[in-house]
């Protein structure tokens, strides 16, 4: 099957600082792929580059056969890529419902949006209880659910998740990963960025290990879990 997303030798800079030093990766339709790496490795930058929020200086990116490099962020969302950003950037002064509606900004099919809203509220029942609450007053876990739900509202084919488990209690982390699998089983391809390597690799079909802007390892989730590099550097085993 041709990959849904393919990056070839992507190099991205912030001014003169090179954050990505040639990333190549691919995601096939229906997969859960994870990108692990320590702080500052370039995981967020990779997702931002895919979403068109920063332009790569070199390299090629295709999504569903289309050239991503020349597409604007809004076109990329329309094409079916959406993201739950790092640090769960919900709109704090909007209600939960308004946040979800913003997620559907790129769509205009009212009926479909309403149906998807119901689906997402079934996925995250806690959000349903808080529809009229301001997002800024939600707990960390609820904000994460909202950020994911909001990303799902654009009905993406490819969902980018940037550290969905960051700062959450272990119990909630488990629930979040369970939901990611649910979302994937309902047909959405997922590219997951995590520092919580154990959990992320456990639910992923394949994974990439990123170190200072370069991919240093690529394998199936279970192989990576057993690889020496990952055990030492990311799972804290010696």
């Amino acid at each position, binding site marked *: 099957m041709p990959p849904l997303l393919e990056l070839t030798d992507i190099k991205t800079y912030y001014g003169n600082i090179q954050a990505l030093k040639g990333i190549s990766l691919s995601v096939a339709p229906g997969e859960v792929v994870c990108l692990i790496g320590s702080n500052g490795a370039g995981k967020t930058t990779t997702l931002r580059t895919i979403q068109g929020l920063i332009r790569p200086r070199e390299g090629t990116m295709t999504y569903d056969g289309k050239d991503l490099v020349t597409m604007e962020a809004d076109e990329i969302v329309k094409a079916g890529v*959406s*993201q739950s950003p790092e640090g769960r950037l919900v709109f704090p002064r909007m209600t939960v419902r308004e946040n979800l509606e913003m997620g559907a900004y790129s769509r205009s099919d009212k009926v479909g949006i309403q149906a998807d809203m119901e689906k997402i509220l079934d996925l995250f029942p806690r959000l349903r209880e808080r*529809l009229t609450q301001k997002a800024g007053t939600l707990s960390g876990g609820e904000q994460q659910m909202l950020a994911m739900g909001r990303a799902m509202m654009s009905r993406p084919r490819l969902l980018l998740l940037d550290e969905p488990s960051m700062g959450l209690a272990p119990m909630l982390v488990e629930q979040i990963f369970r939901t990611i699998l649910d979302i994937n089983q309902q047909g959405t391809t997922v590219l997951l960025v995590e520092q919580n390597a154990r959990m992320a690799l456990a639910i992923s079909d394949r994974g990439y290990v990123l170190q200072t802007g370069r991919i240093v390892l690529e394998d199936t989730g279970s192989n990576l879990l057993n690889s020496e590099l990952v055990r030492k550097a990311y799972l804290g085993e010696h």
Partner: protein
Amino acid sequence: MTHPVKVGVGIGIVAAVVVLLFGGWSAILAGIVAGAAAALVTEGQSIRDRSATLRNGVISGAIVGVFILIAEIVNDILVLPLAGKDPVFPPFTLGPISIPYNMFVAGLAGLVLALAIGALTGWINSLPDKNRRLGLAILLLTFLALYPALDAAAGLGWIEQMISIMIFVVLALGLNIVVGYAGLLDLGYAAFFAIGAYATGLLLSPHLCNQSGFNCEFYQQEWSFWLVIWIAAAIVACFGLLLGAPTLPLTGDYLAIVTLGFGEIVPVVFRNLTTVTLTLPFTGICIAGCIKPLNVTAGEQGINPIARPWVPVVGSFQTGEYIPWYVLILAIIALSIFFINRLRYSRLGRAWSAMREDELAASSMGINLVNTKLMAFAMGATIAGLAGVFYASYITAIFPSVFDFTVSVIILAMVILGGVGNMTGVIVGGLIILLSDRVLLPQLATLLKDTLNTTVVPHVESPAVKDFLTVSVDPTQWRIFLFGLTLVVVMLVRPQGLIPNVRRAAEMHPDEDTWDLPLSIQQADAATQVRSVDRETTID
């Protein structure tokens, strides 16, 4: 301030100040406005209890009325005599009827009106939502239609000031798009007002045309104003895009400084476009001002005369005949409100609020930040352009010095004091600031001067003190000080503005009740927290 008595006292004090200063039939106007205001303010808090709105309206209206009556009496027996003015009213004549009356008539009229309008507004508030809006709209329109007559009958002559004030209201509505909806702090908004006015000046006065040797009849046509208003608005919108574009990568403080720069540059440009020769680049082919450089803006002298609007029946609008101008500026305000309301709930409006909250998140939602920002500047500029067109035509002359930094500051203060992002707040806040500045303060100054001259100065021995009292005690010279003081006090006491943007959520989803008090939200939150903890522990 949930209690209608408190509201009645608060608004009553404000109304009493006005009546104390103006006396006479100002009590009628004060009664109507303050009665309605009191009922509306008490309503906001008691919206759940519909039966209470009528009672609240009556109570607060009555209290306001009592204040007005007392103020009227004090004005008549204390303020006017102290200022050395005749305390007896001139007779009030309506056609052939001449009514003899005294202060009680005016004061009681104010009281009765405050009570009646308070009750009426309270009753309208008790209606179901749809009828309520209709009722309030009818009430407002009736008042606006009657205002010129009331103003004339009461002998107040505020209408001239009201028109200039309403130009600022239009400007504040426009700036509210940029600052309130899109969250872009613009410190040079007067630039767009200036561009609108100058576009009108150039199109509607013979000034430029006379130098060109072309046919100069356009500006003399009866319909030209009605065409120019749209052309000028479009020109200003383009300048909104043009001046917005360089600010795109900037946010917050940096954006504010750049807009401040534009606000300074634009009047300077207009001041200096006096010897212009246009040549095509590289070729040296001259396009305009070849024989003699064009004097485009006439510098400090300004452009005049600028043509005035014309409508059938009324004819050309005249200086000093205020009613047509009043109707026109009201129409511009109504048009702006309609247009801004449509914008606000459109896709663009939603994009603005998302961008204001978080740019990065907004762009991950598929919002094009470049377009969204530029549209905010363009839409804000268009509204300023409308104000500029009206201003140029109303004054019939424009000068670069009119559009300086203080104009931008006053407009921004109106937006912030009224309540950023809330149109009602911006309008009410703006009216309060400018009415105090342009109507109340001069009257206070006159009264104070008269009082000092007639009651105090004759009994003062020392020439130095005498001098001080007659020359230096002048409230109109404290304008900027009082303005600054108001800003400080309001921001300390009510940082969210007079009428903050709290109902936004309720407006977007009128079918849901979002009036939960913070406490009940917390309680509900705590309750669900407990429940969800239960649920979590049951996960295997």
